[in-house]
């Protein structure tokens, strides 16, 4: 650890990296909720599936960057099967049932992960070219984390372009506002729900693969991420994309700072932050939340 400047740079960059991962997962959760009114509690487990898929793809000899492209496809396939068989039939039932259903799904996926990949932690082998560190303002920062930031930015830009410029994206956005109208215009809502779920799964898969090398991959990583992304979307306001961006960066920063100063009980600080924001701003930071 150098001077206070280099520590500050470290903390700022680390919070951006962490916030970026939170953002990708939380946006996926938000899109699924906004379009099909299903709060997917298995989302964290899908994120873990993405990390493990990335590990397996690298382990059989592919490049890490290939894994970033392939692992989301695997997660999307898993998600598509789950959506068609289990979640779609439940869409008309009350919210409590879909919550319990996806909660059961979470345990099923966690159990399957333990069954396939075992209990011991795994590590993703990174290519040599991004294992180095670069000096930034007096601190030696890992290149990999900078690459992660770039990928996060690219994913978010791609997502925004997709939602704003393509026809499918515009249908998706319209369906989150007035689904009945979109349905009347001849769009099959079945495909909209399917598309939203698969898009969410792709995002969870990307997040899993890029976050995998950051920490170890273990079967419980999904639970922590699920809770963090809840905190993000609750603080940002349920269904609000702009709110999620601000909240993800805020939570990333608070968690990094808390981990730096008090290590073990860092998450407690994050929960306290959420409780405070909810107590005074029940609709999230921007007041855009749609709570039922």
């Amino acid at each position, binding site marked *: 650890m150098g001077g206070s400047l280099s520590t500050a740079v470290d903390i700022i960059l680390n919070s951006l990296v962490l916030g970026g991962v939170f953002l990708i997962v939380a946006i996926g959760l938000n899109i699924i909720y906004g379009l099909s009114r299903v709060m997917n509690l298995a989302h964290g487990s899908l994120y873990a599936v993405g990390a493990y898929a990335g590990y397996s793809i690298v382990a059989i000899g592919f490049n890490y960057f290939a894994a970033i492209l392939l692992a989301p496809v695997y997660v999307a396939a898993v998600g598509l099967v789950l959506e068609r068989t289990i979640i779609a039939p439940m869409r008309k039932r009350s919210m409590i049932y879909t919550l319990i*259903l996806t*909660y059961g799904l979470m*345990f099923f996926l966690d159990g399957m992960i333990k069954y396939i990949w075992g209990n011991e932690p795994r590590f993703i082998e990174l290519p040599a070219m991004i294992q180095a560190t670069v000096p930034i303002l007096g601190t030696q920062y890992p290149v990999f984390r900078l690459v992660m930031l770039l990928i996060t930015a690219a994913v978010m830009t791609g997502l925004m372009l997709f939602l704003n410029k393509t026809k499918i994206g515009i249908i998706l956005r319209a369906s989150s506002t007035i689904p009945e109208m979109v349905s009347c215009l001849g769009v099959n809502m079945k495909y909209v729900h399917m598309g939203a779920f698969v898009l969410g799964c792709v995002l969870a898969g990307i997040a899993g693969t890029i976050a995998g090398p950051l920490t170890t991959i273990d079967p419980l990583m999904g639970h922590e991420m699920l809770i963090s992304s809840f905190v993000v979307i609750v603080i940002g306001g349920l269904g609000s994309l702009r709110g999620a961006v601000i909240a993800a960066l805020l939570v990333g920063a608070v968690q990094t700072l808390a981990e730096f100063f008090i290590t*073990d*009980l860092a998450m*407690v600080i994050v929960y306290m932050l*959420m409780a405070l924001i909810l107590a005074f701003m029940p609709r999230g930071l921007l007041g855009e939340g749609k709570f039922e």
Partner: protein
Amino acid sequence: MDKHLTIPDKQPGFSLPTFVVIMIIIAGLAVFPFVITNRFYISLINEMLIYGLLAMSLDVLLGFTGLLSFMHNAYLGISAYAVGLFLIHVSPASLWLACLTGVFFTALVALPVGWVQVRTGGLAFALLTLAFGMMFHTIVWKWYGLTGGDDGLMGMPNPAISIFGWEIGHSGDPTAMYLLTLVVVTICYILTRRIIRSPFGAVLEAIRENEERAAFVGINVRMYKLLGWMLACTLAGVAGALFILYKGYIGPTTMSAFAGAGVLMMVLLGGMGTLWGPLVGAAIFIYIQDYISTMSEHWEIYLGIVVVFLVLFMPTGFVGLGGYLKRLKRG
């Protein structure tokens, strides 16, 4: 809001046949430890009763107020830790004072949590129970100096159980503990049933059915939700006090999300909105768990599959199955 919930008839007291059936069940349970003296079975039924009380308290929230709590076991854990810490550090002999402290402390923790939670809608409420539950789990798990972390709370004394000077045994004795649990669970059941069938219970059900309309007729929805939450958490606190006395030990796994899903499943298995259904569900769940966990280490997969199956095909649980069969008979 839910056509799957069974709505019971609204008499505050017991009808004669129900009363007779309940008396027979209680009498059967009371003589049980004197007929079958195998300690294993006495402990198993004791655990069923304690988890039955916890599942019943969750039913007050889920079945009657329409609020979902994913980690109700957290409040059992908080109370159990409070009772254990009181007995270890403050006074190893005063059992009743320890239990009162535990329940009171649970209520004290649940109050601000509930206050924050009822300010949001049903969905965010459910998500928040998960977040706060995880928070309590993390605290208990990582605060090694106070709670013993992963190892759990060790070195519980075995205080004597005495009622008005009449000593029936100490908390390490399975039969005495079993009888104490049976008495407390029975009292809690009768009290809760009474509360749920009072005008207060009717208000809770009105909120469950239609929150907006309830607000229009002048019901303070937030306050009643908070009262329902406090009732459920206090009952969970009672279950927690019984839990630590019976086990003599508590670890962080009792407060994990996995255990929380188990409690939810007990309510679903039995049938929500019936109060006695979850007691039956808990008995079935504890029995199956005891049976399967010795066979397979992948218990999680089965838990997940059973939850999904229950929600998809049997949302009213075993209690609802009875009603379904009755309707089928009538044609």
